[in-house]
């Protein structure tokens, strides 16, 4: 699918040559991939079942059946109660996904701008880079209270938290990638009469795209994993709020269900991002 090296089966060494970027058997590869993944899932499931049966403590490791049961309970209305804490699982997830989406978009956009500026404008790098490094070392749990003072307890502080969590990977990756932009191509653009800004737009940015893509994927992951922190405050509805609540009442099966909801939707979004990346960056490995 990608660079020759990676399409090669490790069993055959030294690797046989691949026929260009897209080798034959791409469809055979897809079937094999699906089979492998299903196999891996089955193995994980069996391991889980065994672990649950041997520990025999649902507070440690809830059984798959218990989690499945919670999935049904939280997705339906039982005894006049809708799902969990009055909201269906899908609603919790939806609210959180919206927050993650908005937070990621803001964080990625901010990180991109900051990273580009840090990478290209020396004065800004000198002043802004330490600030970014400082901020990204700070634990969200520690400064979240300040956000409440500034932004209240509704959506705003949550979005701020997620944005600030998502910003550093993009900013750092972009700044680093910009510094790694191929000197030869920057010269080529300048020789063609490109202005400073045109050079950034037409050379530096495209050459940084693969690394920026990685930064974006990391950023969305970080936003995801910050959703519980963001929803410590007034977090219901919200998958993070649900998990927190369940945690405090030791409802491990609901916690695990929430983790699955987060992890699976995270997988989906990452797959989308990866597809977009491959479309946008056909020149990977060629510069």
């Amino acid at each position, binding site marked *: 699918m990608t660079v020759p090296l990676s399409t090669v089966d490790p069993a055959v060494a030294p690797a046989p040559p691949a026929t260009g970027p897209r080798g034959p058997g791409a469809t055979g590869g897809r079937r094999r991939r699906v089979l492998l993944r299903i196999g891996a899932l089955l193995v994980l499931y069996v391991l889980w079942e065994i672990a649950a049966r041997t520990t025999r403590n649902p507070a440690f490791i809830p059984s798959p059946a218990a989690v499945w049961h919670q999935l049904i309970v939280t997705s339906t209305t039982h005894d006049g109660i809708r799902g969990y804490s009055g909201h269906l699982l899908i609603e919790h997830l939806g609210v959180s996904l919206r927050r993650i989406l908005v937070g990621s978009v803001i964080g990625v956009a901010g990180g991109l701008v900051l990273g580009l500026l840090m990478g290209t404008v020396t004065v800004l790098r000198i002043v802004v880079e330490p600030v970014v490094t400082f901020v990204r070392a700070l634990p969200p749990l520690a400064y979240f209270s300040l956000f409440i003072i500034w932004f209240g307890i509704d959506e705003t502080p949550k979005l701020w938290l997620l944005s600030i969590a998502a910003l550093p990977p993009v900013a750092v990756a972009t700044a680093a990638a910009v510094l790694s932009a191929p000197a030869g191509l920057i010269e080529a653009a300048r020789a063609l009469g490109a202005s400073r800004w045109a050079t950034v737009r037409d050379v530096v940015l495209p050459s940084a795209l693969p690394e920026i893509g990685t930064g974006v994927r990391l950023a969305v992951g970080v936003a995801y994993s910050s959703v519980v922190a963001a929803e410590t405050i*007034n977090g219901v509805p919200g998958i993070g709020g649900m998990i927190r609540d369940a945690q405090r009442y030791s409802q491990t099966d609901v916690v695990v269900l929430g983790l699955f909801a987060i992890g699976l939707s995270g997988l989906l979004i990452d797959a989308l991002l990866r597809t977009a990346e491959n479309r946008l960056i056909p020149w990977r490995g060629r510069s």
Partner: protein
Amino acid sequence: GNGAASGTNKAEAKTIRLAYQAFPSGDLIVKNQGLLEKALPDYKITWTKFDSGASINTAFVAKSVDIAAIGSSPVARGLSAPLNIPYQVAFVLDVAGDNEALVARNGSGVADVAGLRGKKIGVPFASTAHYSLLAALDQAGVKESEVTVVDLEPQDILAAWTRGDLDAAYSWLPSLDDLRKTGKVLIASRQLATAGKPTLDLGVVSTAFAQAHPEAVDAWRKVEAQALDLIATDRAAAAKAVGQELNISPADAEHQLSQGVFLKPADLASDEWLGTEAKVGKLAENLVSAAQFLKDQQKIDAVPDLATVQKSVYVKGLPDVLSH
């Protein structure tokens, strides 16, 4: 991996692992003055700070603690399915008094609990204050659905309060002091306690530990009782010890201590609380009612029956142990 592996069966090692929390109580005095260490010189004693009952429950599940200071609400949870933590309540550290209260913000126009309808109230979920708030609402005939209850940690309540995002809050010291400055107390836990809905801070002992080291449990109860005596008799010395543990001034600590309800050691064995070996006290009923509350909240699957809970109250040697 030390926790799960070692556990309490390593009785020969003679160690006691205590979990404590940062609320003003005799427990902090015991720790600060090294009372237990003096009473049990041949035990290796470790103190671990926790910041919520939930995490202490988790630590019990992980077999990482032997004795803990923990609120009544998490204990009710721990004793219910699915957790069924094998621990027993062996001490009442304090009863919430004026140190936990429901406050309405000046300007919210709320004059009493019934006036909270349609208002926004902040409270840390799963805490004793949460339990008390719902009890207070119930008492005043306000349905939970008629108000907006927001899950906030005490420091966050203060922040949201200052902005005017909350109309009322059920919280505890020290943030309660700040709330009271700009608000009006609607009800305090002291009143709820007299109305039969007390919230308590309890001392619990893991069952395995209590069976292996009954003499250590006795020693621990004695020093806790000693600390209660100190609070009653020498407030200044007690405040100094508590202040050191909480990183606050002795004056602040004294102020906080003055608002809690600390039982006399002798009262502990009364029917009102733990009771005696012959007859377990009302504490068990209180825990059952807390569990019922959790069941109503859909946080536990089933309410344990009274007999089971009574077995989980450690009354061995009562009342003699506490009367020195």
